[in-house]
């Protein structure tokens, strides 16, 4: 029994106020839970969050210019890049000093490559100039302005110096601007020339096609999950094996199999021509375009949709449907008003899985997508492996992550994230 007087807090058996005691014991519970997941949390932090975070950080980090050419960057601060005139001798002298050090440390081509992402020609400019400049002596060979322009006429072009100055900050928004088809110039952010604008188009296409694939998976997966959930256990298990079998086959094998099926001279076209439905020279173009990507990816991602839906449907008692019908509902009404709302958590879980996987895929679109079924992930892969523009790749990845988070938030608002179950 507790002692209670009007306006005073309730007191627990050991004399402490009840509220405090409750809060303390809840805190202890939370701490205990935290201790239990601490190993996993630390593991995920170290192997997942830190590396990915550091990779995404490259999208704004631009220390290379300042670290390789510190004196040049400092000297350029006084130069007005919009004047159209060359910087003065102090800048040239500072640059030669920095450059000689950079050549010794073998850093000159790396900065040339970095600046080459902004303007073509910087890479060879830095590489070629190194050969002559590294032999110069700082004290004896001054003044450097005309000498450097002699080495390569591009040093006499204000644009070269403008590029160095515009991209000299330790942190830059240049990569993010590039990721949305703009570029960072001396006059601020400007749109990229039209014939190079591709990334926004690819983003929109990626999201659109991922939504279509998710929709197709829902339409095709729901009946399968229904059958699996409502058949007697033996037949259901057999059918389940059939659903899981492609799951265990390698991704590349499945994608290549689709190539064989969908090609112009492939199985489907041959069968249609044999049946007389399609003329021999009017064969269907069902690969190397968006149709091919959607078909192959729906097939590959279907198990991810079927399994969550199946496990949720298994928990829906069949008595509800029977009760609805006994109260006079038609088959359709019983399904739509009683069964379907209970299966929405499974659809939600499956959709999230399928959508997030689809948006990041790049092997399948690369192989069967041709040119209009390609995703943004292909560009990210190109920038990581071939052009080595990791800043741009990180910016594209960060934007993709943001898009997924925004869609997740929207999903939460519309359907509710608590309305997601895996069984």
């Amino acid at each position, binding site marked *: 029994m507790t002692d209670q007087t009007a306006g005073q807090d309730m007191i627990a058996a050991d004399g402490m106020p009840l509220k405090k005691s409750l809060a303390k014991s809840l805190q202890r519970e939370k701490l205990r839970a935290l201790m239990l997941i601490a190993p996993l949390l630390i593991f995920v932090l170290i192997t997942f969050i830190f590396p990915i975070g550091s990779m995404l950080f490259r999208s704004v980090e631009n220390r290379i210019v300042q670290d390789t050419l510190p004196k040049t960057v400092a000297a350029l601060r006084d130069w007005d890049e919009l004047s159209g005139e060359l910087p003065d001798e102090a800048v040239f002298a500072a640059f030669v000093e920095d450059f000689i050090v950079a050549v010794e440390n*073998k*850093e000159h*081509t*790396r900065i040339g*490559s970095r600046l*080459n*992402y902004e303007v*073509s*020609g*910087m*890479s*060879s400019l830095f*590489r070629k100039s190194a050969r002559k400049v590294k032999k110069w002596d700082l004290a004896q060979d001054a003044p450097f302005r005309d000498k450097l322009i002699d080495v390569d006429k591009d040093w006499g072009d204000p644009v070269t110096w403008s590029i160095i100055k515009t991209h000299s900050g330790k942190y830059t928004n240049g990569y993010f601007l590039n990721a949305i088809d703009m570029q960072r110039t001396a006059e601020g952010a400007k749109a990229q020339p039209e*014939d*190079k*604008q*591709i990334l926004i*188009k*690819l983003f929109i296409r990626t999201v659109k096609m991922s939504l279509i694939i998710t929709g197709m998976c829902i339409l095709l997966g729901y009946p399968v999950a229904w059958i699996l959930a409502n058949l007697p256990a033996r037949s259901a298990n057999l059918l389940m094996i059939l659903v899981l079998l492609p799951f265990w086959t390698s991704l590349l094998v499945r994608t290549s199999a689709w190539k064989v099926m969908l*090609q*112009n*001279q*492939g199985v489907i076209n041959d069968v249609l021509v044999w049946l007389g439905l399609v003329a021999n020279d009017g064969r269907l173009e069902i690969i*190397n375009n968006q149709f091919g990507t959607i078909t192959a990816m729906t097939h590959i991602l279907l198990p991810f949709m079927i399994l969550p839906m199946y496990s949720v449907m298994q928990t829906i008692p069949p008595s509800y449907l029977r009760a609805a019908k006994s109260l006079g509902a038609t088959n359709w009404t019983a399904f739509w008003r009683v069964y379907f709302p209970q299966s929405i958590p499974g659809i939600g879980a499956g959709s999230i899985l399928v959508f997030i996987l689809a948006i990041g895929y790049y092997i399948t679109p*690369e*192989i069967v997508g*041709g*040119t*209009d079924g*390609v995703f943004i992930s292909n*560009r990210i892969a*190109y920038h*990581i*492996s071939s*052009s*080595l*523009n990791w800043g741009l790749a990180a910016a594209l990845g960060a934007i993709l992550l943001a898009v997924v988070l925004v869609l997740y938030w929207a999903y939460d608002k519309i359907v509710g994230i608590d309305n997601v179950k895996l069984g």
Partner: protein
Amino acid sequence: MKFTKTLLATTALTVAAGAVAAQEMTIVSWGGAYSKSQLKAYHEPYSAKTGVTIINDDSSAEAVAKLRAMNEAGNVTWDVVDVVAADAMRLCDEGLAMEIDADTQLAPAPDGTSASEDFGDLLVSDCFIPQIVYSTTFGYRTDLVGDTAPTSVCAVFDLENYPGKRSLEKRPINNMEWALLCDGVAKDEVYDVLETPEGQDRALAKLDTIKDSVVWWSAGADTPQLLADGEVIMGSTYNGRLFSVIEEQKQPVAMLWDAQVFDLDGWIIPAGLSEERKQRALDYIYFATDTQRLADQAKYISYGPARASSAPLVGKHEELGIDMAPHMPTDPNNAKNTFLYNYEFWADYRDDIDAKFQAWLAK
């Protein structure tokens, strides 16, 4: 007591295993028929001679990115890497590859010529040890191109006489040069024209005339498969793959050597290796790039050896018994009109032109 004994035993075993594992090296290459030819011609004889186990890794397509990442992490796990010349120059520039002195670290020719003379102009970079000369060229279906077999690369752009699909690589390199060549630009002016935005637009306009009939490939094995399936009537790929499809798989395909683009493929040794691993890598390179070894590789794949002294030693294919010399890209009959990959140009303009090319592809 029992616990300590087991602990000591396991530690001893691990140390022993570690000592045995020390006689290992990781060699990275491209996979497929090419890796197989290296396995037969280099790895197996080397392992037999020295007892070193060679672990193969097929990651050469990502070599530059991975080496850069390894270098940043301070943990280089590869010992020898096979890369194309453009990648080798990039790696050398960034200090990710070790510099090699051809005369002291590579084997001289049997007649005494120094290695630097034997390789000659093919030593395009200080860090690069050339292995083979390969070319990107076209193959065509002999039964699907009609009565006249194509002899010029401009047949690719000729939809009237050669209707049907073509396959081209999904990147601007080589395609832009061929487009300009067939648009009337003289061969020695191609790169000057391609430097200008108007030139680039001109090349894309020429490619636009066949765009609807092109299937774009990204892996070397795509075009041979497309040719074999009859999906395309002509397509570009590496000449060794075409040799494989023509001679080994006996498909009705023939080579169109006109305007083939030479490129070099060879070895680099990553920078930052321990002294022991470096010595082992150098020892392997010395063995694997000597005259006889390079000629041996030609027994398994139709890529030309990079050494001048290996050319007369090129014999017959190991399994098929056919003469390999006429199938080499460097054979005079095939090399009447060739391009050499312009490393300087593409190092500068690749990213820019690729952005335009991909935007054009996406239209």
